[in-house]
Structures are given as C-alpha cells and as structure tokens.
C-alpha cells in the first residue's frame, strides 16, 4: 500500500470535467471515497451523476481532472481497466444477457475455464455461493436470466460484480425496481459489503434510503459539487433539497396568460370549453393506477414525478403507443381506438417522446423529412408528393421555432439536443395537433435553449393546444404548467394549480410521499 499516506482514501477524483456537444455535464467535480463506507450521490436528473459514474467505470474519458486509486494516479481508459482495479458498476439498466443462464451471466467475460473449456461445475457452485452471500440462495444458477423478476436480475448483476475481486461498487438507483422487503435485503447486502471493507457509491433519489444506508453524501447540481461529504444521518432534508435545487441559473419562464389582461379574457372565454382530451380510469397494470385526466385547450398540465413513476407510460398510453389494461381515452368526447398510434395522431394527439433519438427522430434523415413525416398526406395527391410545398411548409414551421442552423437539408443528427427537440415540435405543429404530450422536452438541452423551448411551448398553448408536460425537473413543471399533477409510483398523489405549489413541497411529495410543510 502507500505507507507514507496511511489515511489515503480508496478513491479520489479531482477537478473532473466532461463536456458533451452543447452540455458541460461535469464541471470540476471533486469526490473521495473511503474503503468500507457508503458514499451517496444525490442530485436531480441531469445533475451529472450518470456521467460521473461512467467516468468512474471507465466508460467515459474525462476532458480534465485526475483520478487516484489508493493515492496512486490511475487512468481508467476502458471499463476493463476499471474492473481490474476492483471497481464494479451496477447500472440502472442492467447489462445482462437475457437468454443465458444466471451462472453464465455472472462469469460473463470472466469465465472459469481450463484451457479454453468452461468448467461449468465449478462455475455453478461458485455462482451458488455468491447468490447465497447475497441472501438469495433460492435463485437457480441454471435458470435463464430473462425468467427472473427485476429484483432477481439485480442480484445477478451484483453477483457478477462480486465475482471479481471488487473494492468499490457503484450502484445506480439500485432500489428503483425493488419492493420494500427487497430493498431491506439490498441494505443487508450493502452492510455486508462495507463490513468486508468494500466501498459503495450509492445513487438514489430517495432521501429515506440515503438516511438508512449512507455514511456520507455528496450533492451534485448542474455538473458541480454543491456539497461534499455531508453526514448522511444528521443533515436535514431541507438542506439536501436546498442544495439540490438552489440553482444559480434561473430559467426564464414565459408568463402565464392569466397574468396579462387581454389573455385573461381569452382564458375566461375558454374556460367553459370542453376538454379536448379525457382519460377515464385509464390504467396499465404494473405501470400506473387508474387515472382520470382532462386536458383543456390553451392549458399546460404538468406531470411531476421521478423516473419510473409511470409518467412516460401514461403519455405513451394516451398516445396509443401502449394499450391500456383498463379505462379509455376520449378526444372531443369520442373514444379512441386503444393501442393505435395512427388513430391517435389522426385525432390530433402528438407525442414528443422521452428518448428523442430512438423514439422520435429519423437520425439518417434531413430536418425537412423529419418534420414532414407525420403530415405526408398533406402534401400528396394520390400518394404523389409535392416536394416544393413540403419544403416550404416545413420550413415555415422550423423558422417559426427559430431552428438553428436554418438549413432544411441538414441531417438531423448533427443538430444540438434543443434543436432536435424543435424538429419534433415542428413535426406536430405541421400536423396541427391539438393535444401535445411532451416527455422530458428539455432533457439534454442546454440552458439557453431551454428558455427558448419554454417560450415555444407556452406559445403553442396560447394558440389553443392542450399540453401535457412531463419533467423530473420540478422547477420546469412549476414554471411552465398551469396545473400540476404529482405522480409517485404510478399514482397521482396530489393535484393543484402550479402557483399553489413550490419546489420543496413537490420534491417532498415526489420523494417521500408524506407532505412535510
């Protein structure tokens, strides 16, 4: 070891900076982790937690800064390099091979073999031992991983981490997919690990958990360290929340129409107008509980909730992309065919999904073609496209949204996140949709572009569109929406006009479920 520095932390990261096109994900982050401690990372979505753990896992290379392991400078150039040091990462989206057995998954890439042949009996008994150590002797090492429930898969993932000589284990929201008693088991495992001198970096949104397992807490906010090494048990909730939210960059939200005189008239006139979209007892088993919802023209409804609270599932069900297990969706009082996106689009519903790249954009295609894809019949007679009109009309929409650069032929993959989002919005503008479902519209969008998007969304609502906005950034929901629904674990726990809520209250509702004013 390093005798000259006997108290050197196991891991020290200093001045870590990582920039992606358009976003500075990490801006001079410092962190140290001691052997045998549980170091919690706290922060809102987009605060930089994921990027930081990817740097630690060797999956991302920092632009600046250095990493020391037991006092020695190291470079984690590949995930393999990190693993060799004894750093294991359990990602939120588990990286298991579904069709392969538990044993094979545990020793994937690290097979127990003799001269190239797998020693399956050895592997099997070692897998069983690891599963016992993790408190799950009931998991059959021969079963395929796909047959296990989420909690079981997570155990397999942990067993894989422990199959190496692990010194530090990173867990990214390990409790997100777990039931309460499974969470208790998780805590037992964490305690067992720390007793063996293993360090744990634990990421969670849930303060109560951090209280229970954590030793020290570091808070990340907008890519910087807002607080370093706070005691997990004695720091007050209020302080954590303030550190997570007290942002320096104040977003400029457009004014709500009710605050200006002429618009008030409009809203008053609009008030008796029937809702354009109604959900009646809409539910999907295992995803979200029966939901009643009305979306009115000109109104922005906000849905506040964490990842996994069922918010994306609600939007996708409203848009016909998922078939509800109960209830129905009505547009203008007419029920929509369940599970049919084409019918929903025809009825005037547009969805800007959470994963822009995989769910919304045709990455190989130009701006024009991405915008026009939902409105092709508009430019065609008998299937024959009028490309001049297509170009002119799509351009009018993208210009209206101040798309930059203003080049209709540019491949959409070369645009920044904010401008890609504008392309998606322009698509639904062109389709003249009346209900716009926005799932994390500002994710991966830098601060300047956000304000612009907010203005666009407000303007859309003012023009008579009913907007449903999902965001895990509470200030965004509060600043933009007229009415807010707070969602926790698939259930609406609170509904109120946005002006009657504040960030702390919403965060409390979202995280702990118990109102603590």
């Amino acid at each position, binding site marked *: 070891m390093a005798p000259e520095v006997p108290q050197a932390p196991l891991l020290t990261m200093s001045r870590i900076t990582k920039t992606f096109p358009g976003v500075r994900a990490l801006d001079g982050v410092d962190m140290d982790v001691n052997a045998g401690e549980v170091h919690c990372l706290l922060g809102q979505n987009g605060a930089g937690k994921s990027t930081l753990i990817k740097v630690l896992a060797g999956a991302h290379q920092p632009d600046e800064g250095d990493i020391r392991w037991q006092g020695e400078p190291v470079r984690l150039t590949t995930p393999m390099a990190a693993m060799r040091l004894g750093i294991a990462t359990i990602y939120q989206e588990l990286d298991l091979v579904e069709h392969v057995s538990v044993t094979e998954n545990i020793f994937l890439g690290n097979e127990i073999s003799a001269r190239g042949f797998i020693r399956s009996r050895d592997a099997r008994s070692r897998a069983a031992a690891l599963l016992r150590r993790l408190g799950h002797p009931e998991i059959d090492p021969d079963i395929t991983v796909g047959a296990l429930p989420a909690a079981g898969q997570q155990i397999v993932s942990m067993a894989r981490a422990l199959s190496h000589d692990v010194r530090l284990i990173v867990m990214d929201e390990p409790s997100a997919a777990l039931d309460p008693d499974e969470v208790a088991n998780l805590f037992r495992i964490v305690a067992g690990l720390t007793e063996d001198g293993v360090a744990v970096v634990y990421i969670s949104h849930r303060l109560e958990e951090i209280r229970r397992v954590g030793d020290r807490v570091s808070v990340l906010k907008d890519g910087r360290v807002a607080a370093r090494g706070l005691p997990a048990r004695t720091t007050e909730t209020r302080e954590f929340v303030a550190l997570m939210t007290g942002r320096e960059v104040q977003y400029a939200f457009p004014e709500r129409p009710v605050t200006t005189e002429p618009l008030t008239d409009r809203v008053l006139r609009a008030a008796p107008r029937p809702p354009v979209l109604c959900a009646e007892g809409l539910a999907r088993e295992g995803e979200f509980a029966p939901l009643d919802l009305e979306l009115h023209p000109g109104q922005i409804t906000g849905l506040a909730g964490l990842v996994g609270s069922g918010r994306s599932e609600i939007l996708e069900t409203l848009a016909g992309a998922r078939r509800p297990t109960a209830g129905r969706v009505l547009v203008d009082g007419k029920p929509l065919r369940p599970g049919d*996106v084409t019918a929903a689009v025809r009825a005037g519903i547009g969805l800007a999904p959470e994963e822009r790249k995989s*769910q919304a954009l045709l990455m190989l295609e130009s701006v024009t073609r991405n915008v026009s894809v939902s409105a092709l019949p508009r430019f065609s007679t008998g299937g024959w496209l009028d490309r001049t009109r297509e170009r002119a009309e799509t351009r009018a929409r993208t210009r*209206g949204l101040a798309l930059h650069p*203003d080049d209709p032929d540019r491949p959409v993959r070369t645009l920044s996140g904010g401008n890609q989002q504008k392309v998606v919005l322009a698509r639904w503008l062109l389709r003249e949709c009346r209900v716009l479902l926005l799932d994390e519209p500002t994710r991966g969008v830098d601060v300047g572009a956000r304000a612009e998007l907010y203005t666009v969304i407000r303007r859309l609502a003012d023009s008579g569109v009913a907007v449903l906005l999902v965001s895990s950034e509470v200030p965004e929901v509060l600043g933009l929406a007229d009415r807010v629904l707070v969602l926790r674990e698939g259930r609406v726990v609170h509904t109120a006009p946005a002006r009657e809520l504040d960030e702390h209250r919403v965060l409390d509702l979202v995280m702990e479920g118990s109102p603590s004013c």
Partner: protein
Amino acid sequence: MLSPTGAEAVKEPAKEPASPPRRGISAPRGGLRHLSLAGVLVALVIVGAFTKPEQFLTGDNLQLILTQSSVIGVVTVGVTFVIIGGGIDLSVGAIVALASVWATTVATQEFGLGGVLLCALSVGLGCGLVNGVLIAYGPMVPFIATLAMLASARGLALLISDGKTQVVTVQSVLDLGVSDSYVLGVPPLVLVFAAVAVLGWLVLGRTTFGRRTVAVGGNAEASRLAGIAVRRQRLLLYLLSGLCCGIAAFMLIVLTGSGQNTNGNLYELDAIAAAIIGGTLLSGGRGTITGSVLGVLVFTTITNLFALNNLQTDVQQIAKGAIIVAAVLVQKGRKTQ
C-alpha cells in the same frame, strides 16, 4: 390555429442571410457512391475493350449484358425496397421459380399470353402477401419468414413441374423474345427493366409510400410514434417484392421459352449483393434504386467479362465476394467520417 408560431417567421426574416450549405455533411445522398460505381462500370468496359476488343464492345454483347441484367434487375428493385424498409427477402429466387412454373403449366398456357402473365404476377403477389402477413402481423422475423417461403415455394415449384422443363407453346409469349419485337433495337425485357427501375425510383423518392419506407426502415419505433401505420407498410413492401418476382418470372419465361423449378437460383443473394454494393444499408433506412441498378450492371458486366475471357465461374464467385466486401468497407469508412 397554430399561426402564432408561423407568424413569427414572417416578422423575423432569416437573420443569417443564406447560411452556406455545409457540404460534406449534407452532400447529395448517394451521389458520390453512384459516381464511383459508374466509375467501376467504365473501368470494366475499358478492361473488356482491351482484353476482348472484337467481342466485348459489340452491339450484340451489350444487348446480352442488358438482357441478362433485366431479370435480376427487376427482382433487385423489389428487394431494395424491402431492405430500405428494414426487412430482408430471401425468398425471391424461389418465388420466381414457382411463378415461372405455375405460369407455364399446360392448363395456364391454354389462356394464352394474358393467362401466363396474370398467373405469374398473381403467384408473385400471393407469395408476397404470405410473407407480408407473417412478418407484419405474425409478427415474425423477416429472415425466418422468407427463409420458410424460400423452402416451400421451391418445393411447390418442384411438385408442380415434377422437375421437368415446361416448354412454352404460346406463340405470342415466344414472340416477345425474338428480335422482331425489339423496339428501336432494344429488347422488350430491357424496356420492362427500365420501366420498373424508373417507377421504383419515382416511388421511392417522390411518394408517401417511398418516404414511409425510408422512415420505417430508419427507425420503426419513431415511425410508429409519428403515426405511420408501420405494419401495413411492411405488408405492402413484401407485396411489392412479390410483384417484382412475378414480373421477373414472366421475363424469364419469355427469355428461355420455358418454365423450370430451378429458375431464379440464388437470385436472393445476387439481389441483396447488388443492393448492398449500390449503397443500401442492410439495417434499413437508406438506399437508392440508382445504386441498385448500377450494382446489378456491375455484376452482370463482370460475369460477361469473365465468360468472354474463359474464366471459370469459381473465379467469378470469388471476385463477386471481394467486390461485396470492398463496397461495404467503403460504406463503413464513409459513415465513420
């Protein structure tokens, strides 16, 4: 209704006057590749002109190359659509065989030219329908569904023909193959190929069908969430491929004056190879008819050259393989730039 945003554009005319289009990033799609393929074709012609001057550059030989390209060319157009749409069709060769056999049975030939043509097209469409329904609504993986069709269509062709060559006796069909029917010296088969290619080019680039094909192949989930009827689109694509096979089968009947269950052997591989070297992404979402046509011409010309120079088919096969590898490497290189 949504004019507020549109109106903004009028108030705020482009701040940056005519930003220079960034070439290299937004270069005309496929342009460079087409040029290089055309270059390869020219090089092949030069090689032919030098090695076999008195045989290669004759009207008859060029006509032969074009005629040989026609049948596989029509099949390739259909396959190109399927691949751009994110699928694959391994059954084209077998469908051609089945259609050619079915359309030349004694019973069918009784109905004359119209009967033969209609039968070939219907069999093609029917097989395409089965493929499409299995893949779009099954839903089955295209590779498996069309592999099953490959096996069964060939089997059915053998069953119908009993392994015998069925000679065409309908004079009006045979007439289409002889030089009297040539239009300005061009065989009708070549004209059919040209027509199919031009139609395919128009449909891909200028119609909602073409645009949706590209969208579905590029990102099926995004297309679905954008409101495109993805399954219907897939069904239509396999119908189109089946129709092309029907046309090709009829062309083959005219060309050979017969129908055989061994027709269309390995057409699936030739068509996929031609589409790939023509720049069609096997993963879907990108490709051109022009590229595929050039790909077909390159392959046929090579075959012709090799035959003229008395090189065995084994050498031809090796050369084909090398070309495919080279084309894909070039494609990869350009993508990572």
